[in-house]
């Protein structure tokens, strides 16, 4: 049974004494006692409300908040959610809240808000309704909003339970995977075309106020290209005969380009020309 302090016991006794006799307690005094069965009040928890104190915290955790507790109270009594006996349910709800407080459990504010809401609905229902109004206009049932919320919550409570029942990866089924040792992730090359290159160059030249560009022509490109080719061909420190570099099959313009490239390489001190004696073969060497 629930352990209660001496002070609380005294309170219960006082409450019980007050309620001795057949007179019904005035509204609002019910909170002093723990429960009411039929027309008398109990100082002890009825069996179906008994929860071992150690388990109460666990018990509280099993409820996902005030709506869940309320649903439990309604469903336990097999009541229609659309037809909640608000007075009864409110009393039971408040009993639970009191129990939580008596056990000095950290009570979430939501539970107290719900208790207040229930009390408010109950008081509104106790107020007499104007007879005419009842016939003519729709007066909303004070329970309507609560019922709506309970229904909505219950839908998702069920949906959550069904979600839990769905076959789940790692519990009900397993995904087939195999190793692919030879399949290394490829590093893709970004798509880039000549146009991108040209645009890039245009940008940089434009920014740099590159004043040479009016001199650069298609030939010039070929010359620069030829300069690279020659440097590559020369390798480092190797002597190559000039005749070898100026090949006739390139045609006149080819030879000219090579020659200009050579001159440019010399000018830029990238290659040196050597000649053992006058009219001897000229050798080119990368510096």
């Amino acid at each position, binding site marked *: 049974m629930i352990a209660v302090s001496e002070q609380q016991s005294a309170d219960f006794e006082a409450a019980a004494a007050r309620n001795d006799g057949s007179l*019904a307690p005035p509204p609002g005094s019910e909170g002093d006692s723990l429960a009411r069965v039929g*027309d008398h009040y109990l100082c002890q928890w009825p069996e179906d409300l008994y929860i071992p104190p150690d388990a109460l915290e666990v018990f509280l955790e099993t409820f*996902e*908040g*005030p*709506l*869940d507790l309320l649903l439990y109270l309604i469903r336990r009594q097999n009541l229609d*959610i*659309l*037809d909640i*006996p*608000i*007075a009864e349910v409110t009393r039971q709800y408040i009993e639970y809240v009191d129990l939580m407080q008596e056990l000095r459990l950290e009570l*979430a504010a*939501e539970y107290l808000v*719900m208790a207040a809401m229930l009390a408010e609905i109950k008081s509104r*229902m*106790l107020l007499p*309704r104007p007879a005419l109004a*009842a016939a003519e206009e729709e007066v909303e*049932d*004070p*329970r*309507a909003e609560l*019922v*709506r*919320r309970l*229904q*909505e*919550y*219950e*839908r*998702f*409570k*069920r*949906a*959550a*339970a*069904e*979600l*839990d029942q*769905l*076959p*789940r*990866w*790692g*519990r*009900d*089924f*397993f*995904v*087939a*995977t*195999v*190793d*692919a040792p030879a*399949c290394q992730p490829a590093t*893709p090359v970004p*798509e880039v075309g000549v146009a991108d290159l040209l645009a890039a160059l245009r940008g940089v030249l434009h920014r740099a106020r590159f004043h040479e560009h009016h001199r650069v022509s298609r030939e010039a490109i070929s010359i620069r290209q030829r300069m690279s080719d020659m440097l590559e061909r020369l390798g480092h420190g190797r002597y190559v005969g000039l005749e070898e570099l100026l090949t006739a099959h390139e045609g006149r313009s080819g030879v000219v380009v090579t020659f200009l490239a050579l001159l440019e390489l010399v000018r830029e001190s990238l290659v040196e020309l050597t000649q053992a004696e006058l009219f001897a073969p000229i050798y080119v060497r990368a510096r």
Partner: protein
Amino acid sequence: MPTIKDIVEAALLAYGQPLSIERLQRLFARSAAESDSEVPSREAIETALATLAEDYAQRGIELRQVAGGYRIQVRAELAPWISRLWEARPARYSRALLETLALIAYRQPITRGEIEQVRGVAVSTSIIRTLEEQEWIRVVGRRDVPGRPALYATTDAFLAHFGLNNRSELPALTELTELTELTDWTAEIEGESDEQ
């Protein structure tokens, strides 16, 4: 030379996550950008998938359409044997987490405040974090109200985990009963007065 079916099967097994038909087609493209004559048609991939499904009919594995793609998985009937491979029992999720997940799944996009409204209790940050770490939910935007709260939605990983192809495969939500059925409450009050 491997067949389309061989490549599709190997790809599904190697990837371990759902692959769409488009993605499977792209395995055959020479380059990512251009459309390639070697790329099999949608129908060819579908035929390969159908043949695989038939191949697996008498086996412990099955081809399933999940999260908009295809995946090969071990049949649920074999779980009693296969689950012994792992020491740890699969995680059990709290009701709070499942209810939060259900609200996000059915009501997305939804804010934390809206979830709390329905559940009647605060949603703990750890639940949101757990769901985000599982990659079952993600922030898809912010509601244009004061505080600009994050809007949550479920992900493909959520669908894949629960073996769903799309959200319409979620169990149907129970219908809401019309509130007009609320019985006349004066009767109840009268009954109560009788009691007293």
